[in-house]
């Protein structure tokens, strides 16, 4: 071969190797694309995330654990998205929608000319297919419960190739938020397994990348068992930046299975991973100290939506043979007892010692992190042992000579608090509470239990006295909390399986929650939910403790790093992330 030909071939080969990354497809005619309003970046690079464990599946319908949802969430897209920064809904695959005056009918206009990551076009048939899968009883998708309101399913109909109509059995507040996270599935790939009844086996971890297609910013490139999942750019992604360049900027997104949060921090420090979210305050302080060396971007976003609480067992024990516990429930059901406990708890120390001051004390279920729904007029009583003693005295409790508390019938007040042994923060809270209550003369034992054993006791056997647990953190909207506050709800932890509300205030809460669910106007809903918060803070079914701040960190060269309070805190804008040529000089925000 002539030298020139060889040289040309070599150059071509080199070029091919260099451009081995998938290039984005240029925006086509007829494609209706969404435009990002973020700072523009440039193409190239990869971002590595450390994860606690492997994802269990790549099937968005079956993904229930956090890691699987994180990975599939980058590969899939939904019709209407909740922007994590603003906490409001925005158009995604549906470019616009109309709501009927009674709030029951949603007509969505899909973007035209959109293609899946394998090039196949997307239209209303895929939407119909997707919802058929979600609603199918044999598939048992957890999302199915979201789409059933009042026992009746939402119906989906196709109006034309790019228009879909959703009919709700009755008006539902913030119904648009339901669409967030409901991934649109490719009919051309999944129809066959679905009809064959083999949907549960579809898109497991060993599936070849060519068999998976989604509308997300990334598509599957490679899965190495026990080590990592690699996603590559989706060349047909339907969003562009301000300069009309198709997103995402990154060539690859790598999920590394690192293990515990501590291992994640170690890898982040050594530069193996580029982003880390939901840091504990101890680790955040550590990274803060190392900041001069690493120049990492650190973000403290303020209070999260999670709420931690002390729960007393007020369940009906009925047929169960738990007599000793039944005796103690006399105390737990006494409002003054709970108020005394709440007054004695040192929330300030919890925030300082457990969250290293990066947290907020809570007296209700909605904390300062939820700026749209918090009832700011609720009182925040300071800690007072005196008040606590008064309350106990007025409830008939008394102290003996060695300051041991006894109830009106003379029984010594002694109980145990169970908590998950794997959650160090809640264990610490339990220890602090134990010490606080010992100053009231109560003998409290802290019993760490393995997580599933704890769940079993709280949900099934009811064989526990008190527990320190946490809930919340999903969405800011009150609707996902229905199951916690309504008396028939499955997360109504202090008194599960109520046939009807056990107290007047629970009846009132039931009514308020049902009402807010169908009230479409925000101001009216807020008033209703404010009253719910007021009742909850007064009646103390949970004794609220504190909430941690949302803490995240990133490689200094990562651009458009905008962590949010809602999950997924750092990856929600993965399509807008890019690698700078020079490090970001900002310090801690």
């Amino acid at each position, binding site marked *: 071969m002539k030298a020139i030909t060889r040289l040309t071939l070599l150059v071509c080969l080199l070029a091919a190797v260099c451009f081995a990354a998938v290039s984005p497809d240029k925006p086509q005619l007829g494609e209706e694309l969404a435009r990002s309003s973020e700072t523009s970046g440039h193409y190239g690079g990869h971002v590595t995330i450390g994860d606690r464990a492997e994802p269990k599946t790549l099937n968005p319908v079956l993904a229930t654990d956090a890691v699987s949802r994180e990975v599939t969430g980058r590969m899939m897209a939904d019709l209407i998205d909740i922007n994590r920064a603003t906490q409001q809904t925005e158009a995604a695959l549906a470019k616009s929608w109309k709501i009927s005056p009674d709030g029951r009918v949603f007509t969505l206009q899909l973007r035209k000319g959109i293609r899946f990551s394998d090039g196949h076009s997307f239209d209303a048939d895929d939407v119909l297919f997707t919802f058929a899968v979600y609603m199918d009883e044999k598939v048992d998708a957890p999302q199915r419960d979201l789409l059933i309101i009042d026992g009746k399913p939402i119906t989906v109909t196709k109006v034309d190739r790019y228009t879909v109509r959703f009919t709700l059995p009755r008006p539902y507040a913030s119904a648009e938020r339901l669409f967030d996270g409901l991934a649109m599935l490719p009919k051309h790939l999944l129809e066959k397994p679905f009809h064959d009844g083999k949907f549960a086996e579809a898109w497991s971890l060993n599936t070849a990348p060519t068999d998976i297609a989604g509308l997300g910013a990334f598509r599957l490139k490679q899965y190495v068992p026990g080590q990592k999942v690699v996603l590559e750019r989706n060349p047909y992604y339907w969003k562009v930046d301000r300069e009309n360049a198709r997103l995402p900027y990154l060539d690859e997104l790598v999920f590394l299975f690192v293990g515990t949060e501590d291992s994640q921090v170690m890898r982040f420090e050594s530069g193996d991973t580029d982003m880390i979210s939901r840091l504990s305050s101890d680790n955040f302080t550590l990274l803060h100290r190392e900041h001069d060396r690493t120049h990492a971007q650190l973000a403290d976003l303020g209070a999260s939506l999670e709420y931690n609480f002390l729960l007393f067992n007020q369940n009906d024990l009925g047929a169960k043979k738990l007599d000793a516990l039944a005796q103690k429930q006399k105390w737990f059901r006494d409002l003054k007892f709970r108020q005394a406990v709440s007054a004695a708890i040192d929330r300030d120390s919890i925030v300082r*010692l457990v969250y290293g001051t990066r947290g907020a004390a809570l007296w209700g279920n909605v904390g300062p992190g939820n700026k749209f729904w918090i009832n700011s007029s609720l009182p925040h009583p300071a800690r007072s042992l005196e008040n606590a003693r008064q309350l106990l005295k007025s409830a008939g409790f008394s102290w003996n000579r060695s300051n041991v508390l006894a109830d009106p019938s003379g029984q010594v007040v002694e109980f145990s608090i169970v908590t998950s*042994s794997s959650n160090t923060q809640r264990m610490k809270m339990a*220890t602090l509470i134990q010490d606080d209550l010992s100053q009231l003369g109560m003998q409290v034992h802290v019993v*760490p239990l393995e997580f599933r054993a704890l769940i*079993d006791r709280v949900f099934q056997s009811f064989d526990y006295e008190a527990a320190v647990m946490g809930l919340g953190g999903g969405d800011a909207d009150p609707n996902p909390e229905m199951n916690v506050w309504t008396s028939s709800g499955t997360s109504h932890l202090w008194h599960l399986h109520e046939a009807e509300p056990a107290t007047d205030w629970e009846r009132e809460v039931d009514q308020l929650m049902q009402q807010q669910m169908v009230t479409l106007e925000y101001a009216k809903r807020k008033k209703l939910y404010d009253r719910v918060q007021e009742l909850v803070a007064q009646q103390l079914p949970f004794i609220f403790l504190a909430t941690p701040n949302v803490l995240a960190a990133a490689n200094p060269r990562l651009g458009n790093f905008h962590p949010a309070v809602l999950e997924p805190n750092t990856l929600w804008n993965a399509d807008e992330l890019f690698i700078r040529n020079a490090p970001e000089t900002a310090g801690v925000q």
Partner: protein
Amino acid sequence: MRTRTRALIALVIGLHVILLLAGLIAPCDPAAQNRRLPYAPPSRLHLHDAAGWHVRPFLYRMVPGSEGYEEDRSQQFPLHFLVRGSGYQILGLVQSEWHLFGVDEPGQFALFGTDGFGRDEFSRVLYGGQISVAAGIAATLIALCAGTLVGLLAGFYGRWIDDSLMAGSELFLSLPWLYFLLGVRAFLPLHLSPVRTFFLLTAVIGLIGWARPARLVRGIVLSVRSRNFVLAAQAFGASDLYVIRRHIFPEVWAVLLTQAAMLVPRYIAAEVTLSFFGLGVSEPVSSWGNMLSTLQQYSVLVSYGWLLAPIGALVITSVIYALLADTLHSHLEFHST
């Protein structure tokens, strides 16, 4: 007895006495939280200040500063010996308020610093030693008793009892117990006090450990049983019990003692491992295991080195026991043959 053996036995006794007198030696109540002083470094004793040298060492209060803690030089707290402080009990019998040393309130003499709740680490190490060493000894006793019983039965009565017991021991050794212990805690009733729950768990580990001592004892019984004097005794009509008591026990005794000295530190270490999985004694009681389990957090491990104190205590105890075991081994083996 050689002086080395005597010295080691004195050391072991000394160690146990120190732990028993934890209340006296520790300046603070191990459960007393000082929430203004979490993760404070060890207190520094001074002999010299602006006014010159002092005979009595003193310390300053630690107050939060720009980077961690700094000393508040406004007030000095001299170290006193034989002070009255928080009450405690020795062996549940003797009530006392005397402490070997201490400082006046609101100063705090934290010899090994404080933990995440501001509790004195030194006091917790001493009290924790009581629990950990007691757990080690208790588990060892249980393991050895169970093992000896099984070994005697297997070795003495032989053939199918032996086969089945040994197969049982192999079964036991094959199961990955760590996994199952995780589930066992959930079983125990919530109403036991934390210390009692813990000893119950210790009993469980002890019972798991019968297999190795059983094999050892069996080996010895087998070898002794075939000796001529035993056969002769049996020919003369000696009962099984007599043979066990008179001939087998003395041999077994020596091995058991050595085994005991070897097993105690191993079971103390097992307590640490259990605590790492949340199965140890629960708050606010301290044990070396649950003090070390907080070090699982990387941030704590690198930032607060003084919390490694229980490792020092653990290593010292284990080395003493191991040396004792070595000496016993050579001493007793020498004499038995």
